[in-house]
């Protein structure tokens, strides 16, 4: 379950050691934009040691390495991979070639370490116009790709438009990424909402992302985590309905019925799949069936 993903700058020890306490389902240790070039080494060591020595209590670990057009990215992978982060977030992924280049090097390091292939997943960060257009190809370039991630700040710069709270300028990119990811059978994560002090804004933005089909949403502020978790969690009503669907299906199977209706509506395969997903998430969250 990855509803919220919280960026933590790789050069801030206090944030790194408290990362698992901030409520996010996953933390993204950032070695890229949050770290200035002259601090890349120290941040890489800090992040490596944090993953190596700290217990993250079920919180997933993602590392945003530097992009493949820099001199840093291979050193990032060399330092981080031995400690098996869940995912590598690959910035500025614009094409299949970018994914394959990263995948080849990760495979090489995995082999050296004696890890099975694809032990560490890859999450391309789509933040260029070309990346958006190539989204499906990127998502299907290799089995290592587990999810797509939309980065709106760099994308709007590439689109030569202003980034706004309303986000109309990224409407196309959002829907394109959701469709591409779902078609490829991988997860898809929405860009952070950057106004740390706008509690209503994050609620609106996260709710919209969920409505579009995103799996979850990233955050640059711990203050947004609780809202994101709440938006991307099923409601008790959702959970109860999911259980009703599964019971209705089970009863129909017992009775040998083909078609099943619940509250006057036909239950088809997509509804059953959604019910299964909802129940799985509810169980992970410790939510039982309501009254």
């Amino acid at each position, binding site marked *: 379950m990855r509803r919220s993903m919280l960026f933590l700058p790789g050069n801030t020890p*206090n*944030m790194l*050691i*408290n990362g698992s*306490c*901030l*409520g996010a389902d996953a933390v993204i240790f950032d070695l890229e934009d949050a770290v200035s070039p002259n601090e890349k080494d120290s941040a890489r060591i800090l992040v490596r040691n944090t993953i190596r020595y*700290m*217990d993250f209590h079920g919180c997933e670990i993602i590392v945003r390495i530097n992009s493949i057009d820099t001199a840093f990215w291979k050193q990032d992978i060399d330092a981080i991979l031995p400690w098996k982060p869940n995912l590598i977030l690959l910035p500025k992924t614009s094409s299949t070639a970018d994914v394959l280049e990263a995948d080849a090097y990760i495979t090489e390091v995995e082999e050296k370490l004696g890890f099975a292939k694809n032990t560490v997943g890859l999450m391309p960060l789509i933040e260029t116009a070309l990346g958006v257009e190539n989204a499906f190809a990127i998502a299907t370039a290799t089995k290592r790709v587990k999810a797509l991630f939309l980065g709106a700040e760099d994308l709007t710069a590439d689109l030569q438009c202003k980034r706004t709270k309303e986000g109309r300028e990224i409407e196309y990119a959002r829907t394109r990424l959701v469709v591409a990811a779902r078609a490829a059978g991988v997860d898809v994560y929405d860009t952070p909402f950057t106004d740390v002090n706008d509690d209503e804004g994050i609620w609106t933005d996260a709710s919209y992302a969920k409505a579009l089909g995103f799996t979850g949403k990233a955050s640059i*502020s*711990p*203050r947004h985590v*609780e809202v994101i978790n709440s938006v991307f969690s099923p409601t008790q009503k959702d959970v109860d309905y999911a259980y009703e669907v599964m019971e209705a299906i089970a009863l129909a199977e017992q009775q040998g019925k083909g078609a099943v209706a619940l509250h006057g509506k036909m239950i088809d395969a997509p509804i059953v799949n959604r019910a299964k997903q909802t129940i799985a998430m509810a169980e992970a969250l*410790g939510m039982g069936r309501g009254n």
Partner: protein
Amino acid sequence: MSKVVKSIKEVIALAGLKDGMTVSFHHHLRNGDFVLNMVMAEIAEQGFKDINVNASSLFDVHVPILEHIENGVVTGISADYIAKGVGRAISMGIMKNPVQFRTHGGRPSDISLGRTPIDVAFIAAPTSDTMGNCSGKYGKSACGSLGYAYADAMFAKKVVVITDNLVPYPLQDFSISEDWVDFVVPVEAIGNPKGIVSGTTQITRDPVGLVMASHAAKVIENSGLLKDGFSFQTGAGGASLAAAKFLKDIMLKKEIQGSFGLGGITGYLVDMLHAGCFKTLMDVQCFDLKAVESLRTDPRHQEISAMQYASPSSRSAVVDSLDVVILGATEIDTDFNVNVHTDSNGYIMGGSGGHSDTAAGAKLSMIIAPMFRGRLPIVTDRVTCISTPGKDIDVLVTQGGIAVNPKNVELTQRLTAAGLPIIDIHELKEKTERITGTPKKLPKGDRVVADVISRDGQLLDQIYNVPQK
């Protein structure tokens, strides 16, 4: 008849001060106070020795008192709180006699019971009339409530009001009344307004502080105490204020109207009053300008004395009607004893203030503290100094989990059922030490530098000198 005396020099003589006597001060002017230093300088100038200073608190602005200690002018100190400037010197052994630490409730209690008699009380007053009717609400040095000064005014043998805003008789809306006052001394300035109250108190932006505040608000929400009539006290620290903000949101959402907010009052409690979270604020001390303004203008915001606030020998005190208090800690041990007197190196840097009074009175006493500060864990096997006994502490909230005192079985069940991250305090200690390592025990000196006296007058603990290398 005139009570107005031209100078502090003259009033010391008129009050009959002698060697070995006790003088007292309140701390409402906080780190902006000029009065204690002015009076003690004059006492030293006149050659007095062996003076006992009973101050409700000493701040860093009062560091000049160290010179009077070295010169034998001051040989005894009693206070509820001593900031690190003076505290460090005391921990290094500057005083022959141990400092007497009391609480904000214990101090007026002991004064009223005659256990700590005051010979001359010097009361800094932001506004006074010529007969000594005085108030903290008005004047250039306005500090709001004068709550801690009432016991001094009522029970000292001689009472001197020192003001920088002398107004014609009679002052309306006074706090301390003329029948307790012997002399009034006008001076140019009783304090520096910048140090008296903060312009604004701010909630924390620190993510860890916000996580703790969010946990704290949820503990209150699920404690069974958050219902109409709810009463609440919190400190002015960033995480405590954030907890108050989260609590306000919950109260408004659930349409709960509490009865009172208590304590040192900040603008955040004033906001809660305005939002309808409380019917009244009971104010022993104002922390910021918004609180001062509210006390001056809003009849729902009431000034109370330290006796009414927390004295265990009062017929009743507000703390005994308190539902929830949020408090801080420099250390807490696995028996939930809390230290707020000394820092991680054993130096004095605080004091109980109202900590143990409110913890004893409130139905739910909650400590908010990070798992570690710097690289030192908060939870220890045994605190350096017991400021508040563990029997009075119900919950410790950290970013790494919520430890409930095992005596609270029902509360543990409630919080667990609410899905809050409950953790045994021993486990929390181990979890923290996995990050920080286990710190070495502090070296302990061989001389007692302070007695910590519980609110009911018993010796609770003693603080030893910090050996110097």
